[in-house]
Each structure stands twice: as C-alpha cells, then as structure tokens.
C-alpha cells in the first residue's frame, strides 16, 4: 500500500514480525500508569460486568441490569477498544482470520468465560485489575489472588491433559477459517485497519470535544484501549501463560514478561500514590492511595483466583487475553467473552452476596501493604516476591521439575 520506502520500512518493522513479549510488558505497564493518572489503573472485569448488565437491562431483567449505558462506562469501552486495537493490528500484520474451532472447543470457551466471571467477581479482581494492577498498587489481596491463579491453572492444565487422553473428540472435528490476510485479494484488510483507526479518532474527538471532564476521560479510554489492543496483539502478551508455562512447557518467557510489566507499573504507581498525584479536587490523597486495592485479602481472593485460574486455562485467555484474541478472530474466545459477559451480572447478583456473608471480615480485608509495612517495606516485599517467582521460573525452565510437556 506504500511505495517501497522508509514509511513501508517503518510499517513492516512494527507489523512484519511479532514483538518480544517483554517489550509488550513494558509498554503495557506505561499505559497502565497513564490510566492511573487519568482516572483509575487498568482493570477489565468491571467492563465485562457492565456490558452484561446492559444486556440484562435490555431484555427486561432490570434486577441484574444497570442504568449506566456502555457508552458512558469507561472500562466497558476500554475493553471494546482493546478488541478493536487487536483487530486493527492483526489486519496490519496479516494475522487476522476468523477461526472457528470444533464445537467442543467453543463450549470450553463459553464455560471458561463463565468461570472467569465467577472468579473475578468473587475474588474482586481478574489477572489484570486484581493481579497486575493490584500487585503494582501494593494491594495485599493481589498476593493470595496470584496463589489462587496458580492452583487453578495447575488443576485446569491437568484437566486439559486428561481430556486429551480420555476425550480427544472435544478438540477434534470440523474447523473453519475465513478472511485470512495472506493469499490473493487481501489488500482490503489493511485499508479496513486504517478505516478503523479513523473511526476511533472520530470517536475520540467526539468525546473529548465535550465540556464535561467525565466525557474527556472516556474519550481517552477509547484511545488507550486501541493502543493497548495493538500492543497486546503484537507482543501476544498473555498472563495465562505466565501462570501456565512453568507447569506446561517450562518456558520462562511469559513469566519474565509479566514480572517486568509489574515492576515498571510498581515504580509508576508507587510514585503516584506516594505523592498523591492526580486530580486533587476529585480524589483525596487517601483515595488515590487506595486505588487498585480491593477488599479481598485473603481467602476471598484465594477462592476467586482459583476459580478464575480454572476458567482462563480452559478458555485459553484471561479477561484481557480473551479480548485481544477475540479481535484477532478466534471464535472460541468470542464464546469466552460471551460466557464472561452473561455470567458476571448473575454472579454479582447471587454468588458474591452469599460469599461476602459467609466469609468473616478478616478474610476479605481491603489491605494496603504500606499501611502495615510502610512504603519501603511494601515495595521490598513485592520485589522479593517477584524475585522468588523469577528464580522459580528460571530454575524450572532448566530442570523441568514442574513441567508436564
């Protein structure tokens, strides 16, 4: 589409080859810091919940519905534009294609998505909002959430290996692939990508032209969503892999990439919290400190994390991983998103109140680590845990002690 030249060279260097996952990790952390400065650090599950609530609202089940339309919900729009960003980036890199997996896999996508919805609502956080953001935000619950993910992922991976032996038909059968970017007559794909970018710019402009601060914030979520989606797709950033690979192939690439993004976000978040950076009129310094800190320490996060870990492994993508793979055209992940969206309001309406009632206060505390350890102690603790995780991932990469394949 370009005359061979420097522009083409630039385009090819961005979209010709995948980016290393750790590059994606650093860039995502920077975007997460921006989201924090603008309003609230990155999360995803509340956006799924809002979309689901809107569906229930439309079909008349108002007890599970909401008055906040998707067009006014920053996180719901962030999610949608992550899908759009991944769509654009996969069109540009000729990796887009509608891939319909065998029926059994579609069912696994839906069930995995529903489990993720239960886990994220019960545990008060997904891999992004609860763990990536939570750990960098020095939330104590992020630690037990991570332990839950690890156990859930381990169990679900055992299931997948068992399924392969006992029920091989689930992942076999008719599959289809349409509209791929390689082969004849595919020039339209890149034009469609540019058209989508123009559309996002138009929407961004519409929202930010408003005199309302809230609308400007939403406009920026649309823009950052697009950028996040592109980074995610190019680097194939995947938190499921960070938890799963040590137990599967033993590779440490994904764990290291996720650690690096937490590390970068940790520095940014700590500075923001320490100095109370942000809109002082809207948020008091304490409110800023408590952003990304959820009332889930410790058992609530552990249970939710376990269920979420099962779901993300069966679906093959966490909340955010589902979004970018959906944008790339994996229909299994469309079903995962659907399962998530439908189940989240149901879980929030029926399961979460029961769990909250059942668990004593001491097992669902909103605990900000610096309140106990001071900022230095809290940051050192998180660094120490990242280091332990790194040592484990690297040692296991060499010895394969925990890996199944």
């Amino acid at each position: 589409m370009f005359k061979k030249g420097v522009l083409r060279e630039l385009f090819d260097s961005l979209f010709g080859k995948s980016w290393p996952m750790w590059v994606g990790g650093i860039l995502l952390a920077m975007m997460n810091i921006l989201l924090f400065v603008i309003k609230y650090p990155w999360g995803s599950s509340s956006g799924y919940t809002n979309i689901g609530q809107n569906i229930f609202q439309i079909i008349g089940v108002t007890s599970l519905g909401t008055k906040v339309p998707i067009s006014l919900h920053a996180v719901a729009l962030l999610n949608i534009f992550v899908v759009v960003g991944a769509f654009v980036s996969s069109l540009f890199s000729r990796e887009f294609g509608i891939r319909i997996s065998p029926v059994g896999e579609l069912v696994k996508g839906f069930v995995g998505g529903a489990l993720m919805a239960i886990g994220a609502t019960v545990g008060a956080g997904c891999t992004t909002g609860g763990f990536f953001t939570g750990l960098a935000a020095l939330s104590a619950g992020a630690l037990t959430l991570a332990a839950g993910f690890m156990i859930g992922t381990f169990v679900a991976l055992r299931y997948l290996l068992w399924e392969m032996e006992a029920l091989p038909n689930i992942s076999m059968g008719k599959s289809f692939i349409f509209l791929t970017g390689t082969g004849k007559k595919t020039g339209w794909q890149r034009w469609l990508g540019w058209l989508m970018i123009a559309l996002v710019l138009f929407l961004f402009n519409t929202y930010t032209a408003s005199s309302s601060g809230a609308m400007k914030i939403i406009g920026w979520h649309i823009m950052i969503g697009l950028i996040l989606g592109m980074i995610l797709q190019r680097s194939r950033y995947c938190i499921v892999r960070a938890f799963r690979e040590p137990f599967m192939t033993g590779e440490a690439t994904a764990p290291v990439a996720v650690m690096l993004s937490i590390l970068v976000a940790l520095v940014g978040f700590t500075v923001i919290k320490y100095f109370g950076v942000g809109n002082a009129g809207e948020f008091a310094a304490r409110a800023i400190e408590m952003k990304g800190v959820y009332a889930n320490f410790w058992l609530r996060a552990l249970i939710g994390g376990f269920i979420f870990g099962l779901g993300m492994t069966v679906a093959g993508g966490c909340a955010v991983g589902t979004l970018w793979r959906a944008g790339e055209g994996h229909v299994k992940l469309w079903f995962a998103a659907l399962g998530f969206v439908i189940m989240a309001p149901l879980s929030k309406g029926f399961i979460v109140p029961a769990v909250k009632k059942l668990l004593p206060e001491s097992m669902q505390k909103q605990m900000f680590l610096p309140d106990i350890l001071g900022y230095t102690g809290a940051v050192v603790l998180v660094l120490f845990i990242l280091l332990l995780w790194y040592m484990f991932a690297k040692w296991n990469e060499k010895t394969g002690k925990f890996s199944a394949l």
Partner: protein
Amino acid sequence: MQADQNLDCKGLSCPMPIIKLAKTMKKMASGEVLEMLGTDPGSKADVPAWCEKTGNVFLEHSEEGGTHTFYIKKK
C-alpha cells in the same frame, strides 16, 4: 517434504496445539518427521520454541491462506 505422521490443529488456539504436538511426538520414533497444520498465529513462535526446549528438530515452516504448516523431526 515427506512426513511419517500428520497432526491437524486447524481452528485450535493456544494451548491446544502445543499439548497435541507434545502428545503426538511422544508416540513417534526417533528420526520420524511430523507434519503439523495450524491456524493460530501464536504457533509461529510457539512451535519452534517448544522444539528448542525439547531438543526436537524444527525443519520448516510455511504459510498459505492463514494455514501454517510445520515440519518437525523427533530427536
């Protein structure tokens, strides 16, 4: 290229192709060649990485209309 075994992973997304690949390779004899088909763009990096990790020989990769073909020789 001549293959001794075939594995169809079309339509499947991560992690299923790698799990299937590992399972199939386990049953093959040393020196045999596997032809694997897949449509997940992630496989482009995952299959060579898995081969390197496990010591199997990654022979060839090609793509046509979104379908990737890999040739792998069992060590």
